[in-house]
């Protein structure tokens, strides 16, 4: 198992009157190469959760294991853990700081102690993977467009060659075109490099399209853990948690209620189209 959380609890402000339990006995296993979506309303504990995966937060109780080793053991090398588990925060473009794009992306590998040459090679690879053309390498990161800046920030994490990539709302504020491009690139990284991806998002449509497994966090607990299709079939419970299902889920349920025999598990436009066409042709052949 790549990452394992055993009975993890996290309490903010322990011992003060402001004590708040953010994570409540979380048990979770994440395997290599998984593409996991994480959803939950603001304040559900999902940001607290992801900060446990690379040791930014230490559980109040319980264990976090990476490749079978407890990351809070005394002799554990947390610094190297953070190069294995890359965390891309919300609005990562706010963290760009170097004078040009290439230098900014080289910063991570440099800190890992790699030679100038290796850093450069890593940076080139990472930048090409996120679709930044070479003629922008010398540009100031601050002169780029919003979508480009975000890609450069992502490349900065990729250049450290992580095995796990955690992204906190990577598409917030991007236009639909930019959103699709970025998510396709992330899926490509997972397919090509075998990177394990954890995607925190507020977009149910993106989860349905890209994730193979979906974690729903509510009130510091894992409320659902399963294939997105199965989780979204609980859309009424999701709504009670301040979440929702993709628009497609609502369409399929409404059609079913009207007597059209469609597949309720469809969550993407493509799946819905196939199911509806099939149901329409069945209805036609029944002569109604």
């Amino acid at each position, binding site marked *: 198992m790549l990452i394992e959380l055993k009975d993890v609890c996290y309490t903010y402000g322990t011992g003060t009157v402001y004590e708040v339990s953010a994570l409540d006995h979380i048990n979770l296993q994440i395997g290599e190469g998984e593409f996991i979506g994480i959803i939950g309303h603001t304040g559900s504990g999902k940001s607290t959760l992801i900060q446990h995966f690379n040791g930014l937060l230490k559980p109040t109780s319980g264990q976090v294991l990476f490749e079978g080793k407890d990351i809070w053991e005394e002799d554990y090398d947390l610094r190297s853990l953070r190069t294995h588990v890359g965390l891309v925060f919300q609005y990562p473009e706010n963290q760009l700081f170097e004078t040009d794009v290439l230098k900014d992306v080289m910063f991570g590998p440099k800190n890992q102690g790699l030679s100038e040459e290796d850093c450069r090679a890593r940076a080139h690879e990472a930048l090409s993977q996120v679709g930044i053309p070479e003629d922008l390498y010398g540009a100031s990161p601050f002169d780029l467009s919003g979508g480009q800046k975000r890609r450069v920030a992502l490349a900065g994490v990729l250049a450290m060659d992580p095995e796990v990539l955690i992204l906190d709302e990577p598409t917030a*504020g991007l*236009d639909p075109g930019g*959103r699709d491009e970025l998510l396709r690139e992330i899926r490509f990284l997972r397919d090509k490099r075998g990177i394990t991806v954890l995607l925190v998002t507020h977009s149910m*449509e993106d989860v349905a399209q890209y994730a193979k497994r979906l974690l729903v966090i509510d009130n510091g607990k894992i409320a659902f853990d399963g294939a997105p299709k199965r989780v979204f079939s609980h859309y009424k419970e999701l709504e009670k948690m301040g979440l929702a299902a993709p628009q*497609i889920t*609502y369409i399929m349920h409404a059609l079913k209620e009207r007597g059209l025999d469609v597949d309720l598990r469809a969550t993407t436009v493509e799946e819905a189209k196939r199911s509806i066409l099939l149901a329409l042709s069945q209805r036609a052949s029944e002569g109604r």
Partner: protein
Amino acid sequence: MPSIIKARGLGFDYVKYTDESENAERVTAIREIDLTVEKGTFIAILGHNGSGKSTLAKHINALLVPTSGTMWVDGIDTAKEQDLWKVRQKAGMVFQNPDNQIIGTVVDEDVGFGPENLGIPTKDIWSRVDDALSKVGMLGFRDRSPNHLSGGQKQRVAIAGVVAMHPECIVLDEPTAMLDPNGRREVIEVIRELNQREGVTVILITHYMEEVTYADHVYVMDAGQVVMEGTPREIFAQAERLKELRLSVPQVTELAYELKKAGADLPDGVLTIDELVDALAPRSEQYADRA
């Protein structure tokens, strides 16, 4: 209907300096924009990142003034410096990140900040605050610290802060980009209510296509210009064109479009789940089943 916002030949250039060259570069953010918004309408502006939407929006409350052409808000030329506060009172703005807009330590103080700046007498400020908070459904939170609110609640407080200034029009620049589904729903509901009940003119900039469904009129921007305009139905009937502009259509519209292409008998530009469901499985059939 009288117009509240009017732009003629509106353009905005800015000068960009670089470290390397002495020569400053002139960049055109928006150009040749003609726009007329009638009082009480709900307008949506779409466009990819960098298309000029936010630059246009900032002209409506004189955060920017045009370098060519003219912008009038309720008949006032926004370039007239002496009328700046009049313009800002008529057109309020709400931005993407609620945390950057809330300054008070208590909700009602934050909402009172705007009217206080307008020089409104204290007792009137408090009645305006009450009124604004109740319009966004946040009256019960008036004594709370904004820090303990959800994203959607914070954004509603930010909207109340604008409402308390009694604006004719509210410009919202991606107000739901950072919110969870619940927060998004809350904010959109509040915006629609302000528009329908209070007659406030709404200008909504968004990347969420579903939010545009409610608009009376949509403008689509590209490279600093308005390249498409029409009702949501007219705009979303052009799915391919929108894709070229790095935009999309709501999932329900896309599905209807795909089904129609495959031969299903559907109208153009389906916008809502109800419309699609009614077209595919009319109610009468349900009764036929039962009979």
